[in-house]
């Protein structure tokens, strides 16, 4: 079992989460060329080693997270909220700000 330390809920079993995929993918502009869209949608680095990926805490806070995880050892290096706005709220909370 992989344990993911959700920044909102704390450490939980990975079975609470849904795996999204490669978090390094940047989608091009809507009017970008077919080639750019093809590459973003269909091609993958498929890294063997540390990769940045999205997980969805489906049975918890339902937040999307960005997890750095080794795809060979399953070791997790970092977990953070996928959306900057949520990250900012967390940062404010930990600084003793208004929640």
């Amino acid at each position, binding site marked *: 079992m992989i344990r993911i330390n959700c920044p909102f809920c704390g450490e939980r079993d*990975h079975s609470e989460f849904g795996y999204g995929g490669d978090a390094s993918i940047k989608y091009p502009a809507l009017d970008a060329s077919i080639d750019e869209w093809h590459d973003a949608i*269909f091609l993958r680095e498929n890294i063997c080693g540390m990769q940045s990926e999205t997980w969805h805490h489906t049975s918890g806070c339902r937040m999307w997270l960005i997890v750095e995880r080794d795809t060979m050892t399953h070791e997790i290096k970092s977990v953070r909220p996928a959306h900057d706005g949520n990250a900012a709220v967390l940062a404010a909370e930990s600084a003793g700000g208004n929640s």
Partner: protein
Amino acid sequence: MTRFSAWAVFKAGLSGQKNWDRQWRDPEPKKEYDVVIVGAGLHGLATAYYLAKNHAVGNIAVLDKGWLGGGNAGRNTTIVRSNYMMPGNRQFYEHSLRLWEELSHDLNYNVMFSQRYHVSLFHSPAARDNAARRYNTMRLTDSDGELWDLETLKAEIPHLNYDNARFPIIGAAVQKRAGSARHDAVTWGYARGADSLGVDIIQNCEVTGVTREDGKVASLQTTRSTIGAKKVGFAVAGNSSRLWQMTGLGRLPIETHKLQAFVSEPLKPLLDHVVVFGVGGTHFYISQSDKGGMVFGGDLDWYKSYAQRGNLPIVQDVAECATAIMPCLGRVRLLRHWSGVMDMSMDGSSFICKTPLENLYLNAGWNYGGFKAGPGSGWYFADLIANDRPDPVIERMNLDRFRRGVIIDERGAGPDPKLHG
């Protein structure tokens, strides 16, 4: 090499069955080969065998980073079938099934291919109609397929959960020519066949680098030596992306995921067929091996991984499926479980194709289905390498299909590799 026959067994019996030859050599790699296949799994070995046999190519090597049968050739549930519907898949898998039917004779090696029926249960009128469409479409390619009503199914397989199942069974789609085979025997049979035709099978020889010259692969660096090659074929499903990136060609439409499989303690004969159960998000397939073990599997582990070991939530999922469909298995103990890494492609279908490098050929993207495909894959990959053009049957299995919008999405799941089970 001794040809296997009743007479050979009798003769060897006179010396206590102790004087059989080695089944294949363990040669040192040469400096150069006409064709080097990377990956001595079922697909790589079959490719080498058919290159030598069908196309009279001499001087072939098959390299493997481990030992024969140590990768996915030894990490599967040995199901063989051809119930595919999409053009491109249908013809290919039917050809592969036909090769399976003659394989033991062709290889002079008993691959224990047992055409014991592949029985896909259905649980709703919609699923039945869908199965009817699929199995009728298969018949266009001369595959066999039929639908069983509940009475027929009960008579054939009496101990499924017909009484109080969450998803009541209403019938099954059946391919009678489908079944299972002995995974080690297939690998060993192809290795022995290829070796006897002069192919060098080089184990413990991992490719660590690819040298390019003038738009071609010039040589492969390996953990044993640098090996030159006039033509190179990659057949390393699970690790295709890693090898591909060594060629400097960028990314493939593939993600690597792992799939677990399980075997129980041996039981007396219980299940004569391969039974498949898939409804409401479940996916489960089970058969009984000749030793009596119940061999079964389910879904992927749901996250990308190169680790050849599985996680526990899937053990629970699969056990739940097993007892849902066959409650009589509730007290049976698991003997072993294992995990293999799969090339999960963006449309759930495979690649047997040319590449941007003139003398490099790719065989990849087998998803869950590589075992049954092995003979057909070797057959057409050998043909592609020998003739430098795809046979019409595999024309659609190219890397360009996503760009051109002619994907082969058997499941209709879209470009998310983990969904193509």
